[in-house]
């Protein structure tokens, strides 16, 4: 009865709380709690709620948790946090620390379960009707986490006033959760189960599981059915999530390998310094960010977009220098090229180490790269999302360049028949140099993206070099589409092996599978067949 009354008072006061905001000062009411018995405390809680002042929430939470103390000297009430032997006294409204007091100087304000329930409703009510949308949403979620029949009326009242769609949906779910715990009719409960099921995922299963023991026998079947459905949904989403992780890893592999698909796949150069191009791209990003931080911090969100052309130019030029300085003397001697470029990679690594130091460099995420959003039953982080889109768009751009531009045409001409191309007036050495620079530049762009998900250190490149070669060889040398399919399928395969055998063993298995695959199809997935390739 009392509970009902209090709820009624609460509702009444809450109904006007929107207007009462900033009305009566709740501090004397809180201080009064120090001397009140349980019954008086309950009344006081009602009055506190009536102030409609959201600042009281921490004090009420502390009260429920038994952390509310009264100072013996003047009866003032504080939230107390233990600090060593003493208590740290915190102002209940402002949240500021006031002083430290000995344990003897304060007295705990007593609390019982009845009061706790009242507090919870009060809190829920305060926040469910808060003018702030985010607060209402949080409140609805809080109700969902601790379902009880008492909240039902509160929620229903709040629902009536709610106009925001998303909040309303969440409140509907909160209502359904509370309804299951109440003594309402079977039909209403059945509808509630449906609502909870629409919530989806593990939380819904958990809610239904907790409700299961107490539920009507008539509803048992509905409940189990809903749980089964949720579980199979969940399994499907798990697969989807795995595919997503796999695609995400695959896009990273694609990024790392796509430059190599040009230098190795198209030109046949074994560039062991490819990983270092990626590393230099990542360091370019770092430098760009440093410059922006010191000179124009407002541009920070644009830093990655600025870094892309910078990294492309820097690594492209490094690539150009390498091709003109070393590789052009080694055409037709692939094993020597391999050794020389490995030497180059050592020099590049040590140079970066000497300039920037051996430790990891901090590369920041712009705001649009951080955070995540839910997609059905899975969580999608923005950085992975952007990296997938980024790698696909680089792939498409490269494909267009190869197929549509005159440079691409010259490039293909030179790789297919150098002598013929040269006699048709194509400057083959120039095309070689630019192609290599292009491959290196793309590796640099990849470095920009990888700086967002990996440690930027001088060893960054080494982590990718073997994987990149595996992707290109697996996909089929000289075939860009092969690289795409190779990268994505290896990524997905890796992520599907991981849950059962672990990350390291999964990676080993993938390597072994690729080694076996190359024995079977030495020219990769999408091999060109014919005499010309075998020569």
């Amino acid at each position: 009865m009392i509970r009902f009354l209090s709820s009624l008072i609460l509702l009444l006061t809450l109904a006007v709380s929107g207007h009462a905001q900033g009305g009566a000062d709740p501090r004397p009411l809180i201080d009064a709690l120090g001397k009140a018995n349980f019954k008086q405390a309950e009344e006081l809680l009602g009055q506190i709620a009536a102030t409609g002042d959201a600042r009281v929430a921490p004090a009420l939470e502390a009260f429920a948790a038994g952390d509310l103390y009264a100072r013996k000297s003047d009866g003032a009430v504080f939230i107390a946090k233990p600090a060593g032997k003493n208590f740290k006294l915190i102002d209940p409204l402002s949240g500021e620390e006031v002083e430290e007091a000995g344990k003897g100087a304060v007295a705990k304000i007593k609390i019982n379960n009845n009061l706790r329930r009242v507090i919870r409703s009060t809190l829920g009510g305060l926040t469910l009707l808060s003018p702030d949308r985010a607060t209402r949403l949080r409140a609805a979620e809080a109700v969902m986490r601790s379902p009880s029949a008492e909240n039902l009326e509160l929620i229903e009242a709040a629902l009536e006033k709610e106009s925001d769609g998303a909040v309303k949906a969440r409140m509907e779910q909160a209502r359904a959760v509370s309804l299951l715990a109440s003594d309402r009719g079977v039909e209403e409960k059945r509808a509630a189960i449906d609502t909870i099921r629409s919530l989806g995922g593990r939380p819904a299963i958990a809610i239904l599981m907790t409700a299961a023991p107490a539920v009507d026998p008539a509803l048992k079947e509905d409940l189990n059915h809903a749980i089964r459905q949720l579980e199979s949904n969940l399994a499907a989403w798990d697969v989807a999530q795995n595919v997503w992780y796999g695609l995400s890893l695959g896009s990273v592999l694609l990024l790392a390998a796509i430059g190599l698909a040009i230098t190795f796949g198209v030109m046949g150069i074994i560039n062991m310094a490819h990983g270092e191009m990626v590393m230099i791209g990542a360091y370019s990003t770092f430098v760009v960010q440093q410059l922006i931080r010191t000179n124009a911090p407002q541009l920070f969100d644009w830093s990655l977009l600025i870094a892309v052309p910078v990294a492309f130019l820097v690594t492209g030029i490094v690539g150009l220098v390498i091709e003109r300085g070393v590789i052009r003397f080694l055409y037709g001697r692939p094993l020597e090229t391999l050794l020389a470029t490995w030497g180059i990679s050592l020099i590049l690594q040590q140079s970066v180490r000497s300039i920037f130091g051996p430790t990891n460099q901090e590369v920041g995420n712009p705001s649009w790269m951080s955070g995540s959003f839910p997609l059905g039953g899975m969580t999608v982080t923005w950085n992975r999302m952007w990296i997938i889109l980024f790698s696909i768009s680089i792939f498409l751009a490269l494909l267009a360049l190869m197929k549509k531009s005159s440079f691409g045409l010259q490039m293909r001409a030179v790789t297919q028949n150098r002598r013929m191309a040269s006699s048709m007036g194509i400057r083959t050495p120039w095309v070689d140099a630019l192609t290599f620079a292009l491959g290196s530049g793309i590796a640099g762009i990849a470095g920009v993206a990888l700086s967002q998900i990996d440690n930027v250190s001088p060893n960054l490149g080494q982590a990718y070099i073997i994987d990149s070669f595996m992707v290109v060889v697996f996909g089929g040398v000289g075939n860009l589409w092969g690289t795409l399919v190779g990268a994505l399928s290896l990524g997905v395969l890796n992520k599907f092996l991981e849950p059962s055998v672990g990350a390291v063993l999964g990676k080993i298995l993938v390597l072994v599978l690729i080694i076996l695959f190359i024995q079977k199809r030495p020219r990769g997935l999408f091999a060109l067949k014919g005499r010309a390739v075998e020569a």
Partner: protein
Amino acid sequence: MITSFVLRALNGRITITIAILLAVAALVPALNILVPPGNPFHIPTYAVSLMGKYLCYALLALALDLVWGYCGILSLGHGAFFALGGYAMGMYLMRQIGPRGVYGDPILPDFMVFLNWKELPWFWYGFDMFPFAMLMVLLVPGLLAFVFGWFAFRSRVNGVYLSIITQAMTYALMLAFFRNDMGFGGNNGLTDYKEILGFSVQAQGTRAVLFAASAVMLALCLLLASAIVNSKFGKVLVGVRDAESRVRFLGFRVENIKLFTFVVSAMMAGVAGALFVPQVGIINPGEFAPANSIEVVVWTAVGGRGTLMGPIIGAVLVNAGKSFFTGAFPEFWLFALGGLFIAVTLFLPKGIVGTVEKYWQARKATRKASETSRGGDVLTAQPQAAE
């Protein structure tokens, strides 16, 4: 038959080198043990072990040269065979620790006790016996090379593709050996050895003997390599390197030729690893790192691939350089090594020994040519790829 096989190996230079190696095997331990410290001829024990390490590297380089220099298979995974031989030896040494480990378990090595294992995994059985361990030093790398090569050579994976998958092989092994549940000590590898054949591994005498063993083993392997290279088989091998399809169309089974050489080479690398481990006192998964295998390639390239002396000279020179650089200017070692890779491929493709040989041949030829009529241009003599 065997005698003619061996005798053919002993051409002038090889005989001299083997004699030098045997002399070193006797002399260095003598200077270490018999000459008192303080005497300018005394060689300190740490230097003996350091030189022993170089000799193991030289043997590894010789093994690589057999497949790369003579057969044209650039293996970027020879470090794996070296490490496997080393692990086999390391397992023997671990079993010799017995109850002297930190946890005092008479059977289980410390790391297994630490991981709470109750009994020895099956693949550790037998490693308490020296002969068995030595057999494994040969068999494990040999078997891996056999299985790998059987698949790869039969499906005609060659050139850079083979290089890349050998690199993937050693990379995969490295990842595997880093795992604790593989049973090889994970990250830390195998270390804290106490005794080998009952002698303390730390003792001066043991170290001197290990050095001598490395030198003698290098001499023996040099003899074997020379015998192989100078036989008709060796000529076929060079034929495979220069014109594989010609060899095939002459009716040779190229895959068997490659497989035999690859396995012999892997076993040599395993022996090198086994001699290496007691001298440095540790074996860990880092030995499988792809970078290590590539470094072996540069030793061989510097000394001169396709010659027997080249890899030995290259390994000793580069490693002595490495010891010096990492001591004096640690920052510059990678610059020096990287520069070496580039310089050798661009300016010294035949390596030190090959270049010297070419110079002598050219002089001989011009002398001969000036005596008779004009001969062909010797300087342009270069192996060429088939077709």
